[in-house]
């Protein structure tokens, strides 16, 4: 997902580099892959479990989740239309014919090429403490720097953790506890067929100076990706975790229904950054949730650019006193996209604070819906929450809605909400053009500037990546 950036120091955030359209949209052959039949049956679930040689409790959980999935009805009274998603035509498990490698040299050539084109090995060398790379249903590469491992940090697949007698009980203790399978129909689906993802454990007091990054690539057409990310940050520890996702464009629907469970203990800090660029045939029905202990801090940085339909509302439960949540997000909806995104914060501890700052950009008939939910519990004395949402509409055929909800059950709490919707002013474009920018460059510059509060929260390479995505989306925006 990272571009080769020459002059990295020099390239500033409002500049936009040339983007190669083929960067995300390329397909590798699936020959020799293990691909399970489309649809959902107990046999398929058992096969996935058997292949992973899982503990019994996990198989039981999967089968129960499958029942729940069939039992729950599809929500059809709110949000974007998902009727085009037919589970009978989605393969829930596609595995490349390879074992997980710790060295890129051991990764099969076509898969290695994919991740090289996305810039992953390069980023790993330059600025990451560890990398996990998932291709379709399985992690094909996982590695972490020696010095990080020496501090007792665990960064592996969930499957590997389940095979380790030391970590199997830990996974058992945490897995599925924050996001219950009955949360919604696709959470149930996730637990039935989950595969891949990451397990991260940061011991008490350990600070990682570089981020860990997991990258999820869905290459197979008509398939689903159901990775599970479980992160435990022990008291006083500090982690930045980056998640990237992309897929080539197909005409068949693809489905992403991952789950992210984050446990941030007392005095710990977790930053969770995502740049999502799924192709525009993707149904992105992802669930992310964090629980935060006393004096701890949860920071989300979220960039949503891709997918046909998204339902994405990362949720933070501020359980401990004085815990804080900062959510910074941007969503870019272009033609054929209906992106329903936002965030939820539940403030339960006293003196907890939440600040939500989101941006949305819509163009070419794209639909953006921002939903926020702030719940202040009875015991959350002096809790404070602010939600701010600004939308930029680039034409008259796009749509942007803001749906804030606030539920305040404590009289000493304070909440604030502001929303703005705007357009790019002609004066601004003219001013930039009078300095030599073409109209398209001027618009891209303004949009990048609008997104800047988000991109400046990202490491430089990712900020450049985000600007490139905006540039890509803005191409052809001028009629």
């Amino acid at each position, binding site marked *: 997902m990272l571009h080769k950036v020459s*002059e990295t120091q020099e390239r500033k955030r409002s500049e936009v580099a040339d983007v190669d359209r083929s960067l995300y949209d390329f397909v590798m052959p699936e020959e020799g892959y293990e691909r399970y039949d489309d649809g959902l049956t107990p046999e398929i679930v058992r096969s996935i479990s058997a292949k992973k040689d899982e503990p019994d409790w996990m198989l039981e959980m999967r089968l129960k989740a499958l029942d729940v999935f069939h039992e729950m009805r599809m929500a059809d009274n709110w949000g974007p239309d998902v009727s085009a998603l037919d589970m009978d035509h989605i393969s829930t498990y596609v595995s490349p014919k390879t074992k997980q490698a710790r060295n890129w040299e051991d990764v099969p050539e076509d898969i290695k090429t994919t991740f090289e084109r996305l810039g992953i090995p390069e980023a790993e060398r330059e600025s990451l403490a560890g990398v996990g790379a998932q291709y379709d249903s399985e992690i094909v590469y996982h590695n972490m720097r020696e010095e990080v491992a020496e501090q007792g940090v665990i960064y592996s697949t969930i499957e590997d953790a389940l095979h380790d007698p030391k970590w199997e009980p830990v996974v058992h203790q945490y897995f599925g506890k924050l996001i219950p399978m009955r949360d919604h129909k696709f959470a149930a689906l996730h637990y039935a067929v989950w595969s891949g993802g990451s397990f991260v454990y940061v011991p008490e007091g350990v600070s990682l100076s570089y981020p860990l990054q997991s990258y999820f690539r869905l290459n197979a057409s008509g398939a689903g990706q159901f990775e599970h990310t479980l992160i435990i940050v022990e008291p006083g520890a500090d982690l930045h975790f980056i998640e990237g996702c992309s897929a080539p464009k197909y005409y068949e629907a693809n489905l992403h229904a991952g789950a992210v469970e984050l446990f941030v203990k007392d005095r710990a800090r977790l930053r969770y950054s995502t740049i999502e660029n799924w192709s525009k045939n993707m149904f992105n029905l992802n669930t992310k949730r964090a629980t935060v202990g006393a004096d701890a801090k949860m920071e989300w940085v979220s960039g949503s650019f891709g997918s046909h339909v998204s339902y994405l509302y990362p949720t933070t439960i501020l359980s401990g006193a004085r815990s804080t949540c900062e959510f910074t997000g941007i969503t870019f909806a272009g033609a054929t996209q209906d992106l329903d995104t936002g965030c939820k914060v539940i403030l339960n501890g006293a003196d907890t604070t939440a600040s939500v700052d989101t941006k949305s950009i819509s163009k070419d008939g794209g639909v953006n819906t921002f939903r926020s939910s702030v719940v202040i519990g009875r015991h959350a004395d002096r809790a404070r929450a602010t939600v701010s949402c600004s939308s930029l509409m680039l034409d008259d055929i796009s749509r942007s809605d803001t749906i804030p909800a606030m539920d305040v059950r404590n009289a000493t709490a304070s909440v604030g909400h502001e929303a703005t919707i705007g357009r790019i002013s002609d004066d601004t474009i003219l001013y930039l053009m009078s300095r*030599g920018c073409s109209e398209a*460059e001027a618009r891209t510059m303004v949009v990048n500037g609008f997104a800047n509060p988000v991109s400046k929260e990202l490491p430089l390479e990712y900020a450049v990546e985000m600007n490139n995505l905006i540039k890509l989306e803005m191409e052809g925006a001028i009629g």
Partner: protein
Amino acid sequence: MSEALLTIQGLSAGTEDNPILHNINLAVAQGETHVLMGPNGAGKSTLGHVIMGDPTYKVSSGTVTFDGVDVTDLSPDKRSLAGMFLSYQAPVEVPGVPLYSFLRTICQMRPELKTTARKFRQRVANICDQLSMDDSFLTRELNVGFSGGEKKKIEMLQLLLLQPKLAILDETDSGLDVDALSVVSRGIEAYREECDGALLIITHNTRILERLDVDRTHVMVRGNLVGEGDASLIDEIDANGFGRFEEALAAKGGAA
């Protein structure tokens, strides 16, 4: 006599239903400094914007020729790249775009100004010195939250960086305190010395002109150019105002 850098011939322009400029003829040669004066609302700024190609205004007749090329139908970016510059009376705020990277971007798009990161940084630092600008400005967002005077300094910074052949300064002196005014004057002097550029200074007060060698002075009243003279005309206007020009226009039958 060599051909003028900027030639405006028979130019009439305005908004959709409101003609503003009437049959303007004006020529500015390389290295010359022209001053355009006139009472508030005379159409001076409109002329500056029309020369730059602001699509708010439609040209109903006449031509603008720059450096031997008819630019009447060119968009503002093409005019800018050809060597024209308009300093705004009220520079627009562009949130989220850091000033320094903006400057870098608009220089890198000009082949003649392309340079290495290090040399560029040095150039910017030198110009900031010249203009007594704090270099902390550079990390801030383009024009966002700057005072009027600071915005004008940023316009001067862009002028000196881009080294255009022609600079139109639209009320660059308005609303400035004495210090800011002297900075702007220094900027204009530096531009003349370093670029031998042509200047069209739009103003309705004369203080900024005291230190400049003015070649020609033009007077605009109600969208008409009604007077032209050398630098001495400035002193006359300073003493007597625009009264006689307004009367002259009225005698001619007012604005067409």
